[in-house]
């Protein structure tokens, strides 16, 4: 393993981080309306959300990425690999985040919602001032473990040509005919990247958990 090979692989790290961050952002935001639809009183909305979530989670990420990158590219829309990967992984994350929000919602005591209604708070204030902050705290650990999973799933983007760690690794391995150490280092890079997320999540959980009503 020469320094040059190592540097090439490390050059993939920013792309891996950027892809994970963008996909996570899309998922965290889109997950909110999806979860709201999933828990709506209207049967139609619930069914649409349910179908969306099931479909997004049932089809492997690689199929979504190929579909968006090769399938949608018919002349009307042209996406570069990074955009296609971010959209694909972002949509899958949205479905998973919706389920995480729903799980967190059921963990919040129903008295919180009843109390805010009894106080006459509007729906907006009920969600944004009472339920939202608690939801965030309860959902954080599962969201963090999902983020670590997403970091690893972002390796799939190498198949459509995003220059992230796995892409650089296969590039280096093809050029030097060395696989053993190259892929071992690539795996190690992913493990190293996931450590700060796990550490930050544990820290935040410890500090934020105290402010959830029991």
């Amino acid at each position, binding site marked *: 393993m020469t320094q040059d090979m190592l540097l090439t692989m490390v050059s993939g790290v920013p792309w891996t981080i950027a892809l994970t961050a963008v996909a996570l952002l899309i998922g965290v935001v889109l997950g909110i309306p999806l979860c709201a639809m999933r828990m709506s009183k209207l049967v139609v909305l619930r069914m649409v959300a349910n179908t969306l979530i099931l479909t997004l989670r049932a089809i492997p990420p690689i199929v979504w990425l190929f579909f968006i990158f*090769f399938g949608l590219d018919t002349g009307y829309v042209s996406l570069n690999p990074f955009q296609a990967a971010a959209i694909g992984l972002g949509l899958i994350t949205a479905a998973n985040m919706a389920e995480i929000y729903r799980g967190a919602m059921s963990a919040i005591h129903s008295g919180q919602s009843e109390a805010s209604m009894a106080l006459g708070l509007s729906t907006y204030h009920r969600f944004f001032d009472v339920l939202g902050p608690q939801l965030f705290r309860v959902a954080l650990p599962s969201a963090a473990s999902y983020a670590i999973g997403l970091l690893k799933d972002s390796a799939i983007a190498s198949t459509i040509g995003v220059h992230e760690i796995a892409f650089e690794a296969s590039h280096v391995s093809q050029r030097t005919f060395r696989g*053993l150490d190259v892929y071992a280092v690539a795996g190690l890079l992913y493990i190293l990247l996931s450590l700060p997320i796990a550490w930050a999540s544990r820290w935040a959980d410890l500090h934020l958990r105290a402010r959830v009503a029991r």
Partner: protein
Amino acid sequence: MNDLVDFWLEHLPAMLDGLMVSVQVTGVSLAIGVPLGLLLALAVQSRSKPMRGIAIVVVEVGRGAPALILLQFTYFGLPNAGLSLDSFSSAVIALAWCTGAYTSEIIRAGLEAVPHGQKEAAEAIGLNHLDALRYVILPQALRVSVPALLGFSILMLQASSLCFAIALPELVSQAYLIGSTTFRYMPILVLAGLLYAAICIPATIAVSALERKLGAHA
């Protein structure tokens, strides 16, 4: 529309062949990986320090490194160590490793869910360690783990799609091949997605129904 159906029907046999390979590689990986997960779960709790150390490294690498990297490591990396494997065997090794690492955590949670008194009672009536495990602890622990293990099996079928990267002729490879020869990526990828969904959606619904049913008696 007719055109699309004809296109799908024409390529359906090749796609079903690919699906068979996907299911086979998933099945073999699970058949090796789940027992491996059980061994790892027991090894992580073992009293011997070297054994615990090895088990923890195997589990953490299996969970920490992306499945795609594990696949490429076994297919492109192991030949450097003098071990050349065909794509099916490499896929099975990598996915079984991944399965073992994840299921060891699922099974460990199941083992921890068994009340401590069960172990003490087994010891009190004079069962040795192995018998206590075999007749008392494991039957209860595995029952708790079943829904999570089934859920994980569905994820493994999806993960088998990554074998595309090591040229295993599974569903995604077939779809990609057909797409690149006919230049009709969109319809063939939709068919691939439908085939995955046809297995995974009913399976997901069945697993969550089972989970609710088992949870009702807890």
